[in-house]
């Protein structure tokens, strides 16, 4: 079955071509273009209001772009939803109260044209043990995985998750991503919007950074870090503090007692200069820029 479905899908799983969408005076998405190939795991990263949810809504046909074109597996988004090619877990989407977990997944199972068995969807979401629990009596993590089950039961080419781990504790997030990685390993396309950066580093093959309705960076997590470059150089030194700021590449200096922290645009250059110098430093440590720092710098540049 999966063979025919792959042939059916177009070259791009997701294709947004110069789409724009505004709500009254607010321009939520501006001239956004994005191509996602089948099998990619893409993180859509951005602050609140960056346009992530509007982008997701356009992919599901919930809102139409004012200009531009959105295609999902080569089809109009609404058609792709009807055909079960794309299924989504919306941000904060509530679930029908008063029914049991298996009943709700069963409802979604019946809505889609070529679904997974309910038991399989529950298994993928790690919900088999709570299948007969009422949906309003689930923990936060279980409720979030139920939303995933409701999407994944469609057996879609593309799963879209809008801030899937918001309001989850550490354990809930770990469990959620465990289920998600297992699913992505089956070759399906996964697009998730988030502002948790550690999740991006561990779970996405590609990061699309959005700010003010535009894509401002697009690449692997390592490339995004690389685009900002640099890192921090830490060491202990009890003399010559005045000289650090003048080292090549250094953009910032913090000194606490004898511990020195240098922010640098190019760690290699800075370390070479340190090594060639005469300062009595020891305990040298170099850390690459975190995705957090890269993200902040990128979004600050954009604003």
């Amino acid at each position, binding site marked *: 079955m999966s063979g025919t479905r792959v042939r059916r899908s177009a070259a791009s799983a997701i294709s947004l071509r110069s789409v724009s969408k505004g709500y009254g005076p607010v321009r939520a998405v501006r001239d956004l273009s994005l191509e996602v190939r089948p099998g990619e795991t893409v993180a859509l990263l951005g602050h609140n*209001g960056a346009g992530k949810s*509007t982008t997701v809504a356009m992919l599901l046909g919930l809102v139409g772009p004012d200009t531009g074109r959105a295609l999902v597996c080569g089809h109009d988004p609404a058609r792709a939803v009807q055909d079960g090619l794309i299924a989504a877990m919306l941000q904060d*989407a*509530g*679930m029908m109260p008063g029914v049991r977990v298996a009943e709700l997944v069963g409802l979604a199972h019946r809505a889609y044209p070529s679904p997974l068995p309910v038991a399989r969807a529950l298994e993928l979401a790690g919900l088999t043990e709570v299948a007969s629990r009422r949906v309003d009596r*689930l923990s936060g993590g279980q409720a979030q995985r139920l939303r995933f089950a409701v999407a994944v039961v469609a057996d879609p080419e593309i799963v879209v998750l809008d801030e899937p781990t918001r309001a989850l504790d550490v354990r809930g997030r770990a469990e959620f991503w465990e289920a998600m990685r297992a699913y992505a390993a089956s070759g399906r396309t996964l697009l998730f919007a988030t502002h948790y950066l550690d999740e991006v580093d561990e779970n996405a093959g590609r990061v699309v950074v959005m700010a003010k309705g535009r894509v401002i960076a697009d690449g692997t997590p390592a490339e995004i870090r690389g685009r900002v470059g640099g890192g921090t150089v830490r060491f202990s030194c009890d003399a010559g503090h005045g000289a650090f700021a003048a080292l090549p590449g250094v953009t910032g200096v913090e000194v606490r007692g004898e511990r020195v922290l240098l922010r640098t645009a190019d760690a290699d250059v800075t370390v070479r200069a340190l090594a060639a110098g005469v300062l009595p430093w020891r305990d040298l440590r170099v850390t690459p820029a975190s995705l957090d720092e890269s993200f902040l710098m990128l979004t600050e540049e954009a604003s």
Partner: protein
Amino acid sequence: MTWYFLRLEIVRALRDPRYLALAVATPIGFYLLFATLFGGAPVRPGELRGTVEIMVAMAAYGAIWAVLSTTGPRIAQEREIGWLEQLRAMPVRAWQVLAAKLVAGGAMALPAICSVCLVAALAKGVRLGPGQWAGLVVAMWLGTAAFAALGVAIGYAVNADASYVVCYGLYMVTSAVGGLWVPPGMLPESFRSVSGWLPSNRLADLGWQIAGGHPALWPAIGVLAAWTAGLAVVAVLIYRRPRLRRSRPPGGTAHLNGQNEEARAGEARAGRAGARTAVRADG
């Protein structure tokens, strides 16, 4: 899929203790009380026995709440928690959602009507012909359609907390003025002039006419049909209001943030931290 959806809607209403308490148990309790107090022979010729008249009134009383509570507050709640939005992102048509709600609401009236009739027959010795019983139950059941339309309109018009209050308020007022608590003949003159135009009164009138043996059903059918049609139009208009079509505009606007805060406040009221699916006003 539509059938399964309908089944879930009915199942969850039956699991809700408030449904059984307010739509089934309360009318039975009132029936036993009123029928014991006022259940004597008819005062004037042509009138119904008190046990029969009150049976019909309480069947209508229970049926109205069964229908209103399974449409209005539920739709409002599902709009608020985002379940209806999630359905829009699935291959589920808007008409399927609405049809399931309407039919489920209607279905919930049946146990309310039947249980009062059963108690009347068993506890108060009410005897009607088989055709009368069947006609009374079916006619009153179909007559609740007006309230289903009213519930849908309220559900799409106001939020979950308000919808419960509005539904309950309208329920109480139409029941009182419609002569479900006191026979219409004993109502003050000012009430009596309004009473016959109310769907609550005419719903009971269907039952009273059939139980009386020489039914004149057309006035009741006419008034109920007019209410049903009118309220259905109102419901469609409210449903189509642009701001409700996009009741949860996706992220990135100040409007949205406001709504999220509203939803969070609602959650806090529900007193169940972390559960977006908390049941609040699901009657």
